């Protein structure tokens, strides 16, 4: 009996000793779903864990439409992940409220924060810079150019090489030629805008004419009524109550473009779209019946701006322990050291100087068009109230396009709403 008891105790003690977990760091990493990027980053997780046996990383991919809500809820409950990314616009409140930590240059492998700025193209870190501190590193840096289906151009007797729209006015004429209708219903649109994302494509259209959404000091809304009215009139003409060239209620242009099924001839999108074409419709990709053109400008434009740029930044939770934060930055540095793989596998551009100068980037088809547009682009404005501002713009554009509101009325409502938002 006694021996049995001793044996039993021995077994329990040994099991207990074995069960003590190895002291380790567990990182939680949330990002958005991207079928091309997931296998890549899962490989990085494995490699990193192999290099540092004490560290485990749990990577979770959320659907992009729901991710903002999930991250917000988690942070509100003080259960946020250690590493996450969002677009710069939803990320800004996290920075302003000090929920994310400033970068740790040493952990990232840089001698100083200034060295980080020197390693990246000028202006590309602006989306994560606030009051002199840097809060994240870019996973992707995007701007939008226009994708063109050259086959449809030739079908209607246009030469895609020369007849592509360089101004917004030309866009109307070309789209009218390309459009195919069944009564009122557009079965093929020439071009359509990327509707809910007004801060990216609509603001430059206004700013090309010398207008602005906010005054210099950020206290008043809507500068230069003439510019705004021209833009609002344009959209009214574009919509179902005008020339009927497009509408927000059709399926999004960029989703139909890849299918090459006579639904749309042009769309606005970023460099990553090229990769999507290749994965979704290899035949279309290989046929080279598509090309990319720069963001159009008005005939009477006073500024030559391309679509606004925006970035996704990898950020670290300020509420994580300092040990976790350090490992988080190390892992981010490790992931981002594979810039070429992100570029070639996912079509994501990480705007380091080395990558932009590299053979891989330079030899990408149409890279020079995107680069030229970036050179004449501004970053998407940073404002805690961005989602509400974008919603106000949505109301303005949709009211003139769909609800028969006159541009003057819409402008007045917009001004009122924006000023209310600024005061809140």
């Amino acid at each position: 009996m006694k021996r049995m008891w001793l044996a039993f105790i021995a077994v329990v003690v040994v099991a207990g000793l074995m069960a003590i977990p190895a002291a380790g760091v567990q990182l939680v990493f949330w990002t958005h779903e991207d079928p091309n990027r997931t296998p890549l980053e899962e490989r990085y997780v494995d490699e990193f864990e192999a290099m540092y046996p004490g560290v485990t990383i749990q990577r979770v991919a959320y659907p992009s439409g729901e991710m903002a809500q999930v991250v917000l809820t988690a942070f509100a409950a003080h259960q946020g992940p250690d590493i996450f990314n969002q677009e710069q616009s939803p990320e800004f409140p996290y920075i302003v409220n000090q929920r994310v930590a400033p970068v740790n240059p040493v952990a990232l492998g840089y001698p100083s924060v200034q060295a980080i700025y020197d390693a990246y193209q000028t202006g590309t870190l602006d989306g994560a810079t606030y009051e002199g501190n840097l809060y994240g590193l870019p996973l992707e840096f995007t701007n939008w150019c226009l994708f063109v289906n050259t086959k449809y151009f030739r079908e209607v007797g246009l030469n895609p090489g020369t007849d592509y729209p360089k101004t917004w006015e030309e866009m109307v004429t070309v789209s009218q030629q390309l459009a195919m209708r069944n009564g009122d219903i557009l079965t093929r649109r020439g071009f359509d805008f990327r509707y809910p994302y007004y801060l990216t494509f609509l603001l430059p259209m206004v700013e090309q004419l010398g207008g602005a959404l906010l005054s210099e000091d950020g206290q008043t809304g809507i500068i230069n009524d003439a510019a705004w009215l021209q833009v609002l009139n344009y959209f009214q003409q574009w919509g179902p109550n005008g020339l009927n060239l497009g509408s927000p209620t059709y399926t999004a242009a960029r989703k139909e473009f890849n299918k090459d099924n006579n639904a749309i001839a042009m769309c606005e999108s970023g460099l990553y779209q090229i990769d999507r074409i290749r994965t979704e419709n290899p035949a279309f990709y290989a046929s080279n019946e598509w090309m990319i053109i720069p963001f159009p400008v008005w005939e009477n434009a006073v500024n030559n701006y391309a679509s606004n740029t925006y970035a996704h930044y990898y950020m670290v939770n300020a509420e994580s322990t300092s040990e976790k934060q350090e490992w988080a930055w190390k892992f981010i540095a490790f992931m981002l050291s594979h810039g070429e793989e992100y570029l070639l596998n996912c079509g994501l551009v990480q705007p380091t100087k080395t990558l932009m100068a590299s053979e891989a980037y330079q030899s990408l088809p149409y890279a020079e068009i995107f680069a030229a547009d970036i050179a004449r682009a501004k970053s998407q404005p940073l404002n805690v109230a961005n989602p509400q501002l974008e919603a106000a713009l949505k109301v303005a554009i949709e009211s003139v396009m769909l609800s028969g509101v006159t541009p003057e009325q819409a402008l007045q409502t917009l001004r009122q709403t924006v000023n209310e938002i600024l005061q809140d």
Partner: protein
Amino acid sequence: MRAKGKRASGMERRRARWGWAFVLPSLAFFGLFSFYPIFNAFYTSLFKQKLLSLAPPEYIGLGNYTYLLHSPTFWNSVRATAIFTACTFVLLVGVSLLLAAFIVSRKRVQKTLQMVFFSPAVVSSVVAAAVWLLIFDPRGLGNQVVNGIMQTPGVDHKWLASATMLQLSTVLVYFWKYVGYFTIIFIAGLASIPATLHEAARIDGAGSWQSFWKVSFPLLKPTIVLVSVMAMIQCLRTFSTQYVFYQAGAPRGPIDVIAFGIYNTAIRDHQIGRASAMSVILFCIMLFLSWMQFRVSRSDDVSYL
């Protein structure tokens, strides 16, 4: 009665204790997972609090409520919700009752009809939303079918674009989704009415409609109250259909129902205090309307005798 006095009260007390015993487990559960979060929401509505902010919330008492009651956006939400509820509620309750009565009387095709009308429920909401978006796309089935029936080729009925059509579209989708639900609830209610009661009525000379109104309908009252209260609550709470349409490019005004406003205020604007206040107001509206329905029906006194 008096003679039974002491024993009756003893039995009554015993019965009352058993009543509590049956009810207590769920109350405990609700306490932790429902009452606590709801109380939390009520409490938050008294503060001005932004979701990500680490600063302590600022107590403003009824400040959120006064803001809302003076806000034209909020009143637009109330109007949109009222219109939606009025239309959908009447349709849902009326049609599901008639359907249930009809289905129960047709023994042969019962199962098929039930399956047909319940089938929207087997489809995930995520997918149903995507399907209806494709239908309401100007090139989709919505226009094709209506134009086919009315012989007006090429007309775009602006399912998601015009204010009236947009509201109609949300009603159509909601009705499609839920009519089967309420039909099978009514069927369960009808199935529990013993056949013998109708036979007795028939023997007594009652005609078919009389039999329905005098026998089935009164016994169906608790089910009618159930369906009517549930339908009203569901309609007042409606959110996902409007959300999906808005994301797909529809204008916000006509479909800015209260629950959608709550979502935007909390998730987009980060104003959790104000969003909680909106929830409380919605709660009061629902509570009032449900209480009214209970009073009107006085359905508790139902028995066979």
